């Protein structure tokens, strides 16, 4: 005999403000099988949960319906309460009368009516709930970190310090990411390389950490605790274990004029190269598009000079397969392409550069050895104009840019202005801005120092056009405070380009089944309370892959993601959600439709013997669901022509009962 208890939450005034909860209780107490109905101000409070326990014992309840907020918020809470009252935790249903009712309706009569309808539907489903039991499965005690910038390095370091194994996959030949390219960091002006290199060197010597550099994630299968990841190790044509990083090959290589990616194409490198002096691993790599040997089979000079015999022109991409318990995404950010902003003449003038390009120019290891010069003529610029928000805070119609604030530009612009003023105090510097955003420890002081102590001219207003007349730059801008038009003859113009997610993020998100937002940033499981977890179990977010961040914030989030991963890896087993699909083998025709739509590759086919009515035995191909891999999305149940696929906890019968209840 079914004995159901209905618990209606007021949620303070969140629900009560629009829904007459007493009427809901009254209506539900008259429903079939309902033996108890009550209201509570906060069902999620300990007194609310005690109410469930008491009623369950007193009325011998077999199922519990809670009319409250979204199951995303408190389903787990109420399942636990039911379990402590001795019920199967899957005999709990939630009617969402907050997000889907009280918050969206103003009229009390209408909202109350809808709340009752939703509650009745929940009871109809509850009457058909079966007892479900989770399976437990082991956890692979190794983590994968995708991206070897400062975020990935920090996450890997923290996980390894807790005693777990970590692999870093980095698509470039060296780890270090964007931070390795920077000259100084704000607001302390530490040398970026000086604080990063100890970490990259440490991680390369850490015995718990393996670095797959020049590698990319090819595919991901499995589920939390048990991911199987295929990693493409791109051919570098150099044996990583033999190369000593002496650099003789690069010195002797006859192809010298290849744009150097690490210097954003401002400098050049040879066809075989080590990306930068502090590269980790310090191993050469051959760029097959410019190597004469690989293109035409003529040269082989590097192979002849290599004392370690590390060159291998026949190397091919290799795929290795590894197993992981957790995955951290640390793919970071990139500046946007500023060429569509034709008004700034970036395409036409060598003396209009991006901030990251200036970073390389200011860097002592950069293409000009740290001397600030114009790229067009090698002369030191006397007047430098910085333009903020290039591609940030754009209107929705402007498809060239982003609607969001890139967060880091105001501060790095102040930093670059200070660095120039420190080296060359006679430089005239203008910064055009919409707002200066400097919230952060010592940030505002830093920006004010640029303006007040160093005499950087901050002008509120935007630049309309950078005119390039035979190499002479004129910046046309508006000074909004003095309400006047400005024309500045500039020697160098620096664009603070907006940042966007790394180009690989979108494809990676689909491999991981992790969701991304409209801008391509990874979504958090909860933007406030679970900022370093993705909604996909076992996938964590480290650093700027979830939104623009500066270095300290990136490092903090990277450590937070590591803490979450350590928590997961410390468990020996995990319990799976029993709400998974299952096939009725008698109805299944083995057509493969369900396997084709399954996004998790959870369905395989087995040959099975069936005893026919005439006592003969027939072997048929039928679907079989791997319950550990199935996430219960229900795609297969809709695709199945024969109605053979059904979902535990969300059966067809239950859904139709809900629909019937709502429509009756």
């Amino acid at each position: 005999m079914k004995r159901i208890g209905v618990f209606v939450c007021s949620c303070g005034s969140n629900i009560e403000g629009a829904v007459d909860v007493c009427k809901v209780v009254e209506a539900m107490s008259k429903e079939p099988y309902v033996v108890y109905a009550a209201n509570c101000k906060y069902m999620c409070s300990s007194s609310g949960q005690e109410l469930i326990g008491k009623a369950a014992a007193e009325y011998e309840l077999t199922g519990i319906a809670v009319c409250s907020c979204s199951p995303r918020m408190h389903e787990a809470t109420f399942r636990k309460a039911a379990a402590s009252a001795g019920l199967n935790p899957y005999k709990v249903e939630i009617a969402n009368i907050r997000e889907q009712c009280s918050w969206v309706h103003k009229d009390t009569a209408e909202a109350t009516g809808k709340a009752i309808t939703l509650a009745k539907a929940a009871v109809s489903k509850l009457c058909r709930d079966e007892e479900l039991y989770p399976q437990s499965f082991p956890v692979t005690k190794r983590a994968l970190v995708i991206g070897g910038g400062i975020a990935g390095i920090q996450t890997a370091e923290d996980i390894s310090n807790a005693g777990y194994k970590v692999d870093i996959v980095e698509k470039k030949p060296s780890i270090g990411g964007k931070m390795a390219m920077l000259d100084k960091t704000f607001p302390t002006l530490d040398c970026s390389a000086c604080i990063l290199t100890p970490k990259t060197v440490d991680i390369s010597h850490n015995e718990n950490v393996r670095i797959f550099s020049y590698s990319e994630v090819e595919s991901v299968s499995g589920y939390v605790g048990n991911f199987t990841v295929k990693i493409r190790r791109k051919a570098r044509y150099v044996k990583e274990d033999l190369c000593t990083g002496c650099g003789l090959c690069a010195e002797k290589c006859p192809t010298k004029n290849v744009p150097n990616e690490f210097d954003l194409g401002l400098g050049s490198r040879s066809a075989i190269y080590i990306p930068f002096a502090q590269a980790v691993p310090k191993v050469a790599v051959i760029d097959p598009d410019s190597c004469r040997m690989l293109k035409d089979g003529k040269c082989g000079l590097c192979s002849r000079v290599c004392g370690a015999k590390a060159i291998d022109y026949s190397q091919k991409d290799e795929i290795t397969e590894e197993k992981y318990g957790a995955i951290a995404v640390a793919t970071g950010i990139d500046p946007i392409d500023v060429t569509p902003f034709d008004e700034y003449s970036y395409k036409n003038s060598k003396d209009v550069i991006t901030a990251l390009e200036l970073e390389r120019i200011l860097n002592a290891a950069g293409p000009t050895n740290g001397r600030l010069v114009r790229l067009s003529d090698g002369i030191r610029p006397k007047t430098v104009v910085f333009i903020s928000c290039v591609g940030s805070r754009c209107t929705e119609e402007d498809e060239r840019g982003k609607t969001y604030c890139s967060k880091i530009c105001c501060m790095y612009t102040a930093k670059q202005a200070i660095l120039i003023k420190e080296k060359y105090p006679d430089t005239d510097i203008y910064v055009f801005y919409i707002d200066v955003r400097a919230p952060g420890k010592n940030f505002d002081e830093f920006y004010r120092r640029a303006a007040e102590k160093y005499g950087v001219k901050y002008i509120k207003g935007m630049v309309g056009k950078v005119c390039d007349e035979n190499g002479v730059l004129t910046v046309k801008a508006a000074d909004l405070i003095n309400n006047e038009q400005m024309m500045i003859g500039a020697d160098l113009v620096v664009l603070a380009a907006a940042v966007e997610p790394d180009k690989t993020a979108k494809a990676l998100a689909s491999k991981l089944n992790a969701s991304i937002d409209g801008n391509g940033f990874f979504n958090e499981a909860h933007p406030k309370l679970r900022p370093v977890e993705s909604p996909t179990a076992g996938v964590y977010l480290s650093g700027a892959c979830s939104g623009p961040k500066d270095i300290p914030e990136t490092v903090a989030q990277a450590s937070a993601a590591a803490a979450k991963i350590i928590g997961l890896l410390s468990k020996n087993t995990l319990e799976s959600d029993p709400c998974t699909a299952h096939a009725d083998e008698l109805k299944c025709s083995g057509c493969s439709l369900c396997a084709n739509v399954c996004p998790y590759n959870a369905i395989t086919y087995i040959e099975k013997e069936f005893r026919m009515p005439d006592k003969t035995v027939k072997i048929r191909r039928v679907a079989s669901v791997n319950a550990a891999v199935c996430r219960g999305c229900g795609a297969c149940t809709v695709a199945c022509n024969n109605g053979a696929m059904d979902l535990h906890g969300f059966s067809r019968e239950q859904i139709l009962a809900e629909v019937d209840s709502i429509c009756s």
Partner: protein
Amino acid sequence: MEFCYFPGCTLKNKAKDLDRCARLCAEILGVKLTELPEWQCCGGVYVSTSDDVAVKLASVRALIAAEERGLPLLTVCSACHNVLKRTEHDLRTNAEFAAKVKAYTGSEYKGTVKVVHYLEMLRDLIGYEKIRSAVKYPLDGMKIGCYYGCMLLRPGRVMRTDNPEDPVIMEELIKALGGEPVAFPERSECCGAYTYAESETLTEKRSERVVQSAKNCGAEALVTACPLCKYNAGKYGDLPVLYFTELTAKAFGV
């Protein structure tokens, strides 16, 4: 190829050459221009208040007349093109404006007219290859600065003529005619337009800057599609200013 042709007031007095040469070149290229009967002034400039219906009515009538004939509406004057194209855009995207217009005129615009500038016709429907073959007297590498002004290209999202910051449509025409286009940074800046009526200094400053910029980049002459640009640049600068149709006619030998 046939178009409803909307010459505009200025082309009937100050800018007669723009109109005359446009017609002559069209004939050579096999394009039939049927002048819209009883057309009225486009309104001169597009009014920025969206509810200003009365000022846009002349353009609306031109659009409805072209729609009745089932032909695209061709303009040569930058200002007319700007007003007609933006009014057409308003009719399709602003329901309130369209309703008010209907109440005024008693007839409805269905949204089927394509407003085409003469330069767009040359680029998209004739093609520079055909123009090149029609040239009898090539411009012999004459260095020409293409002066777009502000109205031909902006607002970019509505006009969709070319990239407002880095246009090529006129430069490509000059190349086809055998000239050497000179891209100068001020080429899509405003000449000062009607502000000379109020203060001559602003127009003078702006136009001077435009012409100076073209000269700095080596231009020997300017071409434009806008009577106002020609007037201001010609008055305050010291480069010859021609309409693009004049130059085309010259190269075609008509």
